[in-house]
């Protein structure tokens, strides 16, 4: 397991721009990704220096509130920020995205387009709005196949039916000719997954794949994605605001706040030994089935920061319940950098966190004040 | 956002200005370009007034009329529009008709189907005509005295074919005893007793009382022959059967009409019609401005309606094409009239106050100025009519150069007992913008002496039911009515009698809006009508006109004039008094 951060130092490196670093050996290596949108009100820093790596067969969960920059990250990886109304002039993007040894941000648009749907596929949040209402489900799936494969309609249909069958849609031959609105929510999401998988993508990005679904269906879809991942061996990025969704799926977790990563590590570490007050908040607001709910959920107070005027210092500071905890000689206007924590996941993945409080203080608060309440 | 919207608006405004400039430029430029040859051969300004422009006997070619208004009907007994009377001479003849000659000459009556003018006997009560030998229908059959009688009888059938003038019926059968040919019980449908046809060539009219203008009435298209077995009653106007030099090949109402030579017509029987073109076409179009432009482009020869060049094209026409214009009298007088039933106009002094206070110069300008509007009229008898006197100026209008005479107006108001003025209503047709303009002019002038007048625009299409009804006029309090009038036939009787003879006051379709009913005036009409010598009759009409002026019910504006277009291709073009200043269509030819 290679950790890119070791290249430039132990702390504070992840938010620093790279300078001509050699190509990565990781399957997906995102380095200091910044996606900024100039608007009339100012520069919206949707993603402001994000780095992570992901290997094939593994699942990364990106967690955060809406507006934390997680969806923009996925669009950035897909290269969708640069076409259409997100056109080149509108989004300012910097950093590097290495996929299988290729740098995507400097690649030309057509090259990226050819990767899209074939190597990187995406499952969207609301399958009803994400599928074209005027085309049949089957047609939309076979279209995705035919863009990347020179086959006739019949072969494409066969492939689509195969996939529909694989994702568990009954009577796939018949359902091929149905329109999205004729599917139930769960079936639609299955179809969406079939569409994403039709080209055997190596990287699958699932952006809130279960948000629009009811709880039982959610579980089915998550199971499906997990099964398929095993079968296809893809790398999966699971984007969600709901820690519960990634709890059982993700190998690693990345918590985003205000366009940046505030905590990162193995799922196990982030779940059971979280080192950031924001993660605590997320955990506190998560309904859990595995424990009896003795107290009311503890939501994170306040609202996400404006991405135009991100507060100086710690972005989470205005909402942080521990803002008043003494932090030694730390200057409050300085932003806390991601720092490697002294614990490491079972697989050797490091645990990172960005907080001005000392590690000891945080371990204490977690074990004494937070964990017992959850 | 604000700046964005502003810039958009500015852009639109800018575009509009550019387009407008282009339009003006191309309108002038386009006309100039096409006119190089037209201007060269235009016969000169007013070349068709009182003389013949481009006299020629050359036959052939197509004479192209254009117009915005179709005839009310091309059925000779139904048509009442002036241009229809002029145009109908192409396909129908009468016993007598107007002499082909410019201006006043045209009002002289000459025989047409008949060999000579009437033999009048029985103290002016019997008119006898003999038909020419070689007058024929388009199928070659001869026009008979019975055909003439049958045609005239159709005028009686107002219940079936309404719309045309009914003078003949009023003169020959004042009690309307004859029911018309469609309800005629006589087998030959020639039951009208007042007309006798002892043989195919002779026709005798027996009038209950003499009428000096009877032959004028016989010169109207309503006195045309109609062949009984070709009579399609109400639909006859869609394709009248010709006895003139041209026959109607096709006619689509409001769209077009095409005439070609009537092969069975004998030119030697006709001393009136030159019949020069081989074909005649009429195109009806909607857009009057476009029509003027296309006349100037040379695409058409003349406006069949002869309403005059519109305001949009007038300046260009006068500047670049003056040689193609005739600025002639139409025989109409434009005027305001004060109903005596509406207080305070029951008092002559209040009427005089209006006459004096009116700004005739401004009224003339509202009409279009001296050229397009006409000369200021000092009295109510148009110039082409015997007995008229352009110098008779009882209210010193000409002497004052058309300016209002406020002093006299105030004097009159005082005498009327309305020293501080009064309120009244000016009624004007809503479909005549020029008339509305004159109403506003009058309104402004009256304000100067304290007379507050509202302008009420009524539905112009319902004239006969609104201002034509004395009851409605009184109810609505129409103290001043703006109208225009032209004669059906060019005599004092034709022009003035419906306007000022008290016996012509009708409950509907009234034209004597003032409800003037002066026994002296009425009896002057009787004397003049009984007089068979037109000059003597003219003297009587002169007295009549003076009495009308003295009654102070009329405020004449102008002797109406128009500016008409005469294409450079036209030959034998001259305007006529008989046809309200229109060219004599039957004489026109084209150069190629």
């Amino acid at each position, binding site marked *: 397991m290679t950790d890119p951060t070791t290249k430039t130092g132990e702390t504070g490196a992840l938010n620093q721009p790279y300078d001509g670093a050699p190509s990565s050996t990781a399957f997906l290596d995102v380095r200091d990704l910044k996606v900024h949108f100039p608007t009339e009100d100012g520069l919206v820093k949707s993603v402001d220096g994000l780095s992570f790596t992901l290997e094939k067969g593994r699942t990364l969960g990106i967690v955060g509130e809406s507006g934390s920059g997680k969806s923009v990250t996925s669009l950035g990886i897909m290269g969708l920020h640069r076409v259409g109304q997100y056109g080149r002039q509108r989004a300012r993007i910097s950093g590097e995205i290495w996929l299988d040894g290729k740098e995507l941000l400097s690649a030309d648009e057509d090259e990226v387009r050819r990767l899209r749907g074939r190597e990187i596929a995406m499952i969207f949040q609301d399958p009803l709005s994400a599928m074209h209402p005027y085309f049949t489900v089957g047609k939309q799936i076979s279209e995705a196949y035919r863009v990347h494969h020179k086959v006739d309609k019949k072969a494409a249909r066969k492939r689509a039916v195969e996939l529909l069958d694989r994702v568990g849609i009954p009577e796939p031959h018949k359902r091929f000719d149905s329109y999205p609105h004729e599917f139930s929510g769960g079936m639609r999401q299955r179809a969406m997954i079939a569409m994403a998988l039709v080209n055997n993508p190596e990287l699958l990005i699932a952006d809130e794949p279960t948000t629009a679904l009811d709880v039982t269906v959610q579980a089915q879809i998550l199971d499906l994605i997990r099964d398929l991942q095993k079968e296809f061996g893809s790398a999966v990025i699971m984007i969600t605001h709901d820690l519960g969704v990634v709890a059982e799926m993700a190998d690693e977790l990345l918590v985003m706040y205000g366009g940046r990563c505030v905590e990162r590590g193995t799922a196990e570490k982030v779940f059971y030994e979280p080192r950031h007050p924001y993660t605590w908040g997320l955990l506190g607001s998560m309904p859990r089935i595995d424990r009896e709910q003795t107290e009311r959920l503890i939501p994170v107070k306040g609202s996400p920061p404006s991405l135009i005027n991100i507060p100086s210092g710690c972005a989470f500071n205005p909402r942080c319940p521990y803002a008043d905890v003494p932090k030694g000689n730390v200057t409050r206007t300085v932003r806390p950098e991601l720092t490697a924590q002294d614990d490491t996941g079972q697989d050797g993945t490091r645990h990172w966190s960005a907080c001005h409080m000392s590690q000891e203080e945080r371990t204490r608060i977690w074990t004494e004040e937070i964990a017992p309440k959850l | 956002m604000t700046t964005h919207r502003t810039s958009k608006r500015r852009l639109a405004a800018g575009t509009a200005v550019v387009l407008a400039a*282009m339009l003006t430029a191309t309108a002038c430029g386009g006309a100039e370009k096409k006119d190089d040859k037209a201007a060269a051969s235009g016969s000169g300004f007013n070349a068709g007034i009182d003389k013949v422009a481009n006299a020629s006997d050359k036959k052939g070619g197509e004479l192209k009329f254009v117009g915005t208004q179709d005839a*009310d009907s091309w059925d000779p007994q139904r048509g009442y529009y002036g241009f229809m009377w002029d145009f109908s001479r192409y396909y129908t003849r009468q016993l007598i008709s107007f002499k082909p000659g410019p201006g006043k000459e045209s009002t002289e009556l000459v025989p047409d189907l008949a060999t000579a003018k009437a033999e009048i006997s029985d103290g002016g009560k019997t008119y006898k005509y003999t038909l020419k030998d070689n007058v024929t229908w388009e199928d070659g059959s001869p026009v008979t005295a019975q055909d003439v009688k049958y045609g005239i009888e159709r005028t009686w059938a107002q219940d079936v074919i309404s719309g045309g003038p009914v003078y003949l019926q009023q003169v020959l059968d004042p009690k309307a005893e004859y029911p018309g040919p469609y309800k005629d019980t006589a087998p030959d449908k020639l039951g009208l007793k007042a007309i006798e046809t002892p043989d195919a060539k002779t026709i005798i009219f027996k009038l209950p009382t003499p009428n000096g203008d009877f032959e004028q009435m016989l010169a109207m298209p309503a006195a045309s022959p109609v062949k009984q077995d070709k009579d399609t009653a109400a639909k006859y106007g869609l394709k009248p059967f010709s006895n003139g030099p041209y026959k109607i090949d096709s006619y689509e109402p409001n769209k077009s009409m095409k005439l070609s030579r009537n092969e069975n017509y004998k030119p030697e029987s006709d001393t009136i019609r030159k019949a020069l073109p081989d074909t005649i076409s009429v195109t009806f179009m909607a857009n009057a401005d476009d029509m003027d432009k296309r006349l100037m482009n040379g695409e058409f020869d003349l406006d069949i309606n002869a309403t005059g060049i519109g305001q949009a094209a007038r300046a260009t026409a006068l500047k670049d094409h003056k040689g193609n214009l005739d600025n002639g009298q139409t025989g109409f007088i434009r005027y305001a009239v004060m109903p005596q039933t509406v207080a305070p106009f029951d008092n002559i002094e209040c009427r005089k106050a209006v006459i004096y206070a009116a700004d005739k110069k401004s009224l003339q300008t509202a009409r279009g100025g001296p050229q397009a509007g006409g000369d200021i009229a000092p009295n109510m008898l148009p110039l082409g009519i015997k007995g008229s006197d352009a110098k008779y100026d009882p209210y010193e209008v000409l002497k004052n150069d058309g300016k209002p005479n406020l002093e006299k107006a105030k004097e009159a108001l005082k005498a009327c007992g309305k020293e501080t003025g009064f309120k009244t209503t000016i009624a004007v047709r809503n479909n005549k913008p020029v008339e509305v303009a004159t109403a506003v002019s009058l309104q402004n002038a009256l304000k100067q002496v304290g007379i507050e007048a509202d302008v009420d625009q009524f539905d112009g*299409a319902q004239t006969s039911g609104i201002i034509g009804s004395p009851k409605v006029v009184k109810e609505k309090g129409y103290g001043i009515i703006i109208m225009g009038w032209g004669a059906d036939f060019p005599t004092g009787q034709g022009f003035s009698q419906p306007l000022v003879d008290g016996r012509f006051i009708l409950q509907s379709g009234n034209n004597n809006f003032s409800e003037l009913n002066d026994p002296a005036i009425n009896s002057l009409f009787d004397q003049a009508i009984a007089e068979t010598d037109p000059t003597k009759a003219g003297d009587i009409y002169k007295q009549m006109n003076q009495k009308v002026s003295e009654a102070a019910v009329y405020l004449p504006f102008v002797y109406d004039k128009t500016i008409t277009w005469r294409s450079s291709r036209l030959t034998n073009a001259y305007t006529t008094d008989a046809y309200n200043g229109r060219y004599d269509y039957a004489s026109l030819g084209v150069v190629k």
Partner: protein
Amino acid sequence: MLAYLIRRIFAVLVMLLVITLVTFGIFFLFPKLIGTDPALYFVGKQSDPAAIEGIRQKMGLDDPILVQFGKFVVGLVAGRTYANGSDVTQCAAPCFGYSFKTEQEVWPLLLDWLPVTLSLAMGAVVLWVAGGVATGVVSALKRGSLLDRSAMGVALAGVSLPIYFTGMLVIALFSDQLGWFGRPEASFAEDPGRWFNGMILPWVSLAFLYAAMYARLTRATMLEVLGEDYIRTARAKGLTEPVVIGKHAMRSTMTPILTVLGLDLGALMGGAVLTEYTFSLHGLGYSAVRAISEHDLPVILGITLISAFFVVAANLIVDLLYAVIDPRVRLS
């Protein structure tokens, strides 16, 4: 589906009947209420009592309004006879009435005017849909560019300038000055070449007005559609931009445009009044204006009905079309 169709067609018929009744009331009852006599409109310069009585007889104006209406409706289906003593006029079914101004049956007149209006509308439709939609799409894709701004500026001018103005402008420029195109005079039957040449300016003038509207509509719709999730999906599939725009975005953009187009066409079938007037095209619109100015009631009634028919029919067709275009719409 069939039941729906039958129900809708029945509703259309009822609506047309109501429109007929209302129109009838306006033109034949209203004059009575304000104290004028419809017969007066037809007698011409002199209102001879015999003439008025004759017309009243022949038109059946003495009957109660509902009887008149009933006769009219029967005439539509079975034809009718206008009689005044021995003066009898047959009006064959479908009898839309009889013009007492021109002594013509209304239905053949309508049939005469309709092709003019139809050809004007159809030619213009082709131009404005092609031009307006293309402009709108390009504007939407290049939003904020100089091209977008100038196209929308021209569109604004197109929407705001009266056709009388643009019509006279193109006549002055292309007909009088450059001599490229004639005026619409020849009918298609007479001379197809001249007909086409003459119709170009009316088409262009009318299309300009609508193209402007359609460009703005297309641009707005396209921008909205481009923001839809399924467009993002299409791109995520790796589709090329031409396919994303031309297939996925256009499909959705065309739906509101087709709706508006159907209704516009329906309305235009009743006559493009100003265009017809400006170019002196003898279609339904111009004839309606003339009939109104001449108080030719039967013609006004006929044109009103045929226009109403097209509007109502267009509505029905748009509804049916909707079901074809949008699979989410069910007819029931």
